[in-house]
């Protein structure tokens, strides 16, 4: 009896921890079906209305659209710049490596409020009008280091002999990059891009300092929080959650399928 209880301690603990982690998600999801009026504080009955007419609530879809736009543009820019740096850091030896590593590390070690205020001061000094453009500039900045870290690991695991084999088989440097290096780095680059999009899409603090009057989805929720957030926001949040989970599960299942395939080789 004592033994079986000891064996169950960890699984039980994990179960409780997961319940704790999932409570707000379940809550948000459940209240996206609430037949609420302006605010979404008390349960008033079940409805699909908020899902089917999500854009009816003023501002929700515009803010969501802005966030997607900002997320996509920042992700593309940050992923391109970060991948280049990652390749340089792993594949080449040069002076100032330590300084460059420090420069890449610092944005990750700086509180968002400092990054946001700093950039806002910069824009203020230069007399730049805040808007979508300044938000994108800010997002590329804080996503860049995360991209470098993620892609670096992948570059380090890529055997340079494969690129040499490409050269040996008549591929010029450009062809070597696009036919060998890039496809082999792709899983790392894709992971970095997903991370980057997630960071950008959910960022509030830095965005708030550099948005001017432009709305993003987190800013919409923040502004609405004082009066009460409408159920439509829960719909968007839940939909994004489901999409993200599906992507993660699909990658995992795909990875598992590949692993199984390799196991039954020969």
């Amino acid at each position, binding site marked *: 009896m004592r033994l079986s209880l000891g064996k169950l301690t960890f699984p039980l603990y*994990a179960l409780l921890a997961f319940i704790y982690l999932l409570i*707000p998600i379940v809550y948000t999801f459940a209240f996206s079906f609430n037949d609420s009026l302006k605010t979404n504080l008390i349960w008033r009955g079940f409805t699909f209305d908020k899902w089917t007419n999500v854009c009816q609530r003023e501002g929700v879809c515009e803010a969501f659209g802005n966030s997607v736009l900002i997320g996509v543009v920042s992700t593309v820019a940050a992923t391109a710049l970060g991948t280049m740096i990652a390749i340089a850091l792993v594949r*080449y030896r040069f002076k100032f490596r330590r300084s460059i590593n420090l420069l890449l590390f610092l*944005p990750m070690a700086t509180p968002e409020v*400092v990054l946001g205020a700093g950039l806002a*001061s910069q824009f203020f000094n230069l007399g730049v009008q805040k808007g979508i453009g300044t938000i994108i500039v800010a997002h590329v900045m804080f996503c860049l280091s995360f991209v470098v*870290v993620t892609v670096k690991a992948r570059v380090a695991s890529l055997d340079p002999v494969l690129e040499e084999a490409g050269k040996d088989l008549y591929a010029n440097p450009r062809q070597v990059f696009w036919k060998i290096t890039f496809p082999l780095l792709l899983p790392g680059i894709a992971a970095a891009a997903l991370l980057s999009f997630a960071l950008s899409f959910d960022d*509030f603090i830095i965005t708030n300092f550099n948005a001017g009057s432009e709305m993003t989805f987190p800013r919409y929720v923040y502004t609405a929080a004082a009066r009460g*957030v409408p159920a439509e926001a829960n719909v968007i949040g839940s939909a994004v959650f489901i999409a993200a989970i599906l992507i993660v599960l699909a990658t995992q299942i795909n990875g598992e399928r590949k692993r199984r395939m390799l196991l039954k080789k020969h």
Partner: protein
Amino acid sequence: MAFAAFSSTKSNGTSKPKKTGRVVIALLAPGLAYLGAFFLTPLIALIMVSLQAQDPYGGIGDYIPAFEINNYFLVITEYFPHMFRSFSYALIATILALLISYPLAYFIGVKARPYPLLQKLMLTLVIAPFFISFLLRTLAWKQIFSNESWIVTTLQDTGLLEADQYVVGTPFMVIFGLTYNFIPFMTLPLYTSLERLDTRYLEAGSDLYASPSKVFRKVTLPLSMPGIISGTLLTFIPIAGDYINASGDFLGSSSTAMLGNVIEANYLQINDYPSASALSVLLMGAILILVAGYVKKSGTEDLL
């Protein structure tokens, strides 16, 4: 993975370093120039603004370049309680997150090793909170603990809370929210280092007559140190600068305002840019000293 950012990474020997050349410059220049323009110079701009003085001929929000060191003494005297609150909340929340995460990470990384699919599934659950908006999940807790919720009324009925006492707006609620929101940042690096832990060391430990608690203290804990360092930094830094959980519209009240709230209010609401900037510089400085000391002590040389 990005969450291993703070732990040391051993370069693997397969990649052979090549010579420097134009290629390196072409690869590095755009990204580094970007960070120079939008990370480094803003920090300088921040320092410059923090030293500005009120324009004697201008109105509110008009400042002129100056070298007003006094700004720093003013914000320190005025906002010392907020600074203290920020760092004590961050410390408590980080410790709580560590205590909650460690057994979970241990279960996923060590105990569940025979079941790789289950491991992956549990990891997905750990990062699941990332996929729902930070603000929405914080608001969810606010409503779960709202004054009218059954949790609070039950607490009041049983006498654990006075009839006029509530949960939202208290330091407890803010620390609760901070802990919850940043747990994944703690669990993932812990998992990464525990997952690599060779269980043969543990067996060797118990083989040498060490009790389970001794094995943990002498073997498991030291071997998972990189994860603990990485996790505490990844948790502590964003918490120290956070202003959503402590905001009156979310889990806090004016009595729980942290440094982030003060910076936000000074910068975006009352346009006192020098004070906000001075506070930001102080926060950044404190964090940098902390990180440098921590990294030096733990010997994580290669930061990225």
